[in-house]
């Protein structure tokens, strides 16, 4: 008897697939939210596209072939690039210092150790939750907004840019590091404690060494993000590539624009490459071979050397933080901010703005994740490149060439979209779209598409190759391997990344507010530039409440999806 002769004799015994009610619920809610968000943009009523601007867009992109390569402009570009790099290096370094210090009190294991003789875990939980909630506030405010705040207080000094990166990044580092510590196996740590070791040294002997590869690898990921943040911050006037790009765009010098774009792509792409190679080596199984150790140590050493060099290059005026003028300004701003001005009739208006912000973030997230998912497969090294899972063993010359071409082009598109700061994307969108939340959503979507596409490509590259190769060897075609192996294994991570991107997009709505994209972000930037601190407090409260809401929904969906 062959197995093909096996037939179900009684179909009544075949179980039906389990209903996934929560999934259906979330999908339905997602559909409703999407239609609602499109409605918020005026998609169904108003004229959105300004066809007069299409020619202008053509001119902008046409200039890509003729970037300004004059010596004087190249010199300016180099200086701007170094300034952006220096902001990123200093911001990363300080955020790592603060983040590492805060990571301990933000971790559960710390409080469990402090209160390990308590019968119940209540006190440990209360302390932990308090620290975590406090840490969520600096994180909830985007670095762009921090930048505007620091410019108001400290003026247009590099220190404003560095602090604007340090504060939100520091609290993100604290959160991620504390979670890393909590996920590290505590058995050795507990074993040391039970042999009478002091808790603090035991932490450094047992817990931290085990977590080190993850901690270092995340530090380099933060550096990637800091490069992009530093470029975005340039737009508000602290200098660097973002600032020069804004100047060139506003003075319609598109050839200069492209010189700066290319510089930003080299800088951002270089940082991404360095970080991704290093992170891959750090988390590999055999992470202690001589060459890898050399790469890791060399990178850490280089990173440490970069800090004083960067500080020397931009020379931030640390004295400003503690100067008398700063103190006076903080006091006067606090005086002006209290009591916050809240009129009863304002609620409706604020809620309407919140809805717009929510809609903008959702559309940006949808755009970024769908685009990212498609491009992730094109851009992953292990699918379409020679030797890849979707390429037959004996690929034709054409298959090998086209696979490589698709890979290069998709990587370039991803790099380009994430290197250009979102506010610049928003300005470019305004050439063809009327101001509103749609250009904002598209700008954020494009920018985050580049980031997400790359992260998702990493997910695909890290898939376990064994089951995929097993499918291939049993005779499945490239597409069959894709739908039966690659897609289902990558999907859960894609979903988690997309939901997390939603949180990021919501916070980032403030950065396109500057260019007239509506919602709370626009109000915030208006209030900041008109020094309306009484109104600012109220708007910030709404904004932070909104970020908490989105974080909650996102965490809940991630938890209940499976």
């Amino acid at each position, binding site marked *: 008897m062959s197995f093909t002769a096996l037939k179900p004799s009684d179909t009544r015994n075949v179980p039906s697939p389990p209903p996934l009610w929560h999934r259906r619920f979330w999908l339905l809610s997602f559909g409703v939210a999407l239609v609602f968000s499109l409605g918020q943009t005026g998609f169904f009523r108003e004229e959105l596209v300004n066809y007069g601007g299409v020619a202008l867009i053509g001119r902008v992109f046409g200039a890509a072939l003729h970037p300004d390569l004059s010596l004087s402009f190249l010199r300016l570009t180099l200086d701007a690039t170094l300034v952006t790099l220096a902001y990123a290096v200093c911001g990363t370094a300080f955020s790592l210092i603060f983040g590492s210090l805060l990571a301990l009190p933000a971790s559960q294991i710390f409080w469990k150790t402090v209160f390990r003789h308590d019968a119940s875990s209540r006190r440990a939980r209360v302390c932990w939750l308090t620290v975590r909630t406090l840490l969520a506030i600096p994180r909830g405010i985007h670095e762009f907004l921090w930048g505007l705040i620091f410019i108001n207080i400290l003026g247009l000094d590099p220190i404003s840019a560095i602090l604007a990166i340090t504060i939100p990044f520091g609290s993100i580092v604290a959160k991620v590091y504390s979670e890393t510590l909590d996920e590290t196996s505590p058995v050795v740590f507990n074993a040391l404690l039970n042999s009478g070791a002091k808790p603090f040294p035991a932490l450094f*002997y047992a817990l931290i060494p085990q977590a080190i590869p993850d901690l270092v690898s995340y530090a380099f990921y933060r550096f990637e993000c800091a490069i992009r943040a530093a470029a975005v911050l340039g737009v508000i006037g602290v200098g660097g590539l973002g600032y020069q790009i804004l100047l060139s765009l506003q003075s319609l010098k598109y050839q200069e624009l492209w010189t700066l774009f290319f510089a930003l792509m080299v800088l951002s792409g270089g940082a991404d490459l360095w970080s991704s190679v290093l992170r891959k080596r750090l988390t590999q199984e055999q992470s202690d071979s001589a060459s890898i150790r050399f790469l890791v140590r060399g990178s850490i050493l280089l990173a440490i050397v970069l800090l004083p060099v960067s500080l020397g290059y931009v020379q931030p005026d640390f004295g400003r933080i503690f100067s008398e003028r700063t103190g006076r300004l903080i006091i006067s701003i606090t005086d002006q901010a209290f009591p916050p001005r809240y009129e009863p009739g304002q609620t409706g208006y604020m809620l309407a703005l919140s809805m717009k912000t929510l809609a903008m973030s959702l559309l940006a997230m949808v755009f970024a994740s769908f685009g990212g998912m498609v491009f992730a497969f094109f851009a992953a090294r292990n699918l379409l490149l020679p030797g890849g899972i979707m390429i037959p063993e004996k690929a034709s010359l054409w298959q090998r060439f086209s696979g490589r071409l698709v890979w290069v082009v998709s990587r370039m598109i991803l790099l380009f979209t994430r290197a250009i700061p979102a506010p610049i994307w928003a300005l470019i969108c305004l050439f063809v779209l009327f101001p509103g939340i749609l250009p904002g959503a598209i700008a954020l979507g494009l920018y985050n598409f580049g980031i997400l596409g790359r992260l998702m490509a990493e997910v695909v590259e890290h898939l376990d190759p064994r089951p995929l190769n097993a499918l291939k060897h049993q005779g499945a075609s490239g597409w069959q391997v894709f739908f039966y192996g690659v897609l289902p294994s990558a999907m859960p991570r894609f979903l988690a990344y997309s939901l997390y991107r939603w949180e990021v997009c919501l916070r980032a709505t403030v950065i396109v507010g500057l260019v007239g994209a509506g919602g709370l972000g626009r109000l915030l930037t208006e209030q900041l530039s008109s020094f309306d601190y009484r109104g600012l407090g109220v708007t910030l409260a709404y904004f932070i409440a909104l970020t908490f809401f989105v974080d909650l929904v996102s965490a809940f969906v991630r938890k209940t999806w499976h």
Partner: protein
Amino acid sequence: MTPIFELKNVCKSFGKVTALDGINLTIMPTERVAIVGPSGAGKTTLLNLLNGSIRPDAGEVRVLGQNLTTLSRKQLRHIQRQIGTVYQQFHLVEPLRVIHNINAGHLGHWSATKALFSLIKPLAVAQAQEALVQVGIPEKLYAQTSHLSGGQKQRVALARVLVQNPQAILADEPISNLDPRRRHEIMDLIRRLVDQTGKTLILNLHSIEFAYTHCHRIIGLRHGRIQFDDVPERISEQHVHELYRLETL
């Protein structure tokens, strides 16, 4: 002479599962005691009570004459320094070098600054080296712990306990993760080390053979109760058979 460990009517349960039920036990200094019994008999719970990592639900655990439940945090840590434990899973920090894993045995009395400094420039190197000579792998002082074999890791764990220099060593199935040849070597090593240093040894063993050859006293544990507690010569095959008997339904 005060007993090193004394348990009076000790009970411990986890949720609905009773792990230990009315244990009475006295262990004197320099004794070598094997605790044997089937999986789930409560052997590990018993060791965890002895080193103070868990507390009894009822009854009294006395270590070196002190009731563990009434001690302050500092006093408890002081007592815990006198008890070293080795584990089935070795419980070493794999990314660290051997020297640092051994020096972790000092963490009870080293100051925080000294401990942190030692991670950069190792301190107490001579003492760590001596401990490694004792356990037979002196050449591994600066090796990456993750590169060692199972037997070598258990030797490093023993070296860590030697550096801690406790009065008693608790060993929770120290040979279960090793191949038969290594089992013999490690058991002989443990016996030699406690003999030379005059320490007390309490061994959890899944199977009983080594208990006969390496210990003064064998305690049979089943369903959280002591079935027998005697010198090896007086433990009959009938005892052992009863201890490991499968439940008849």
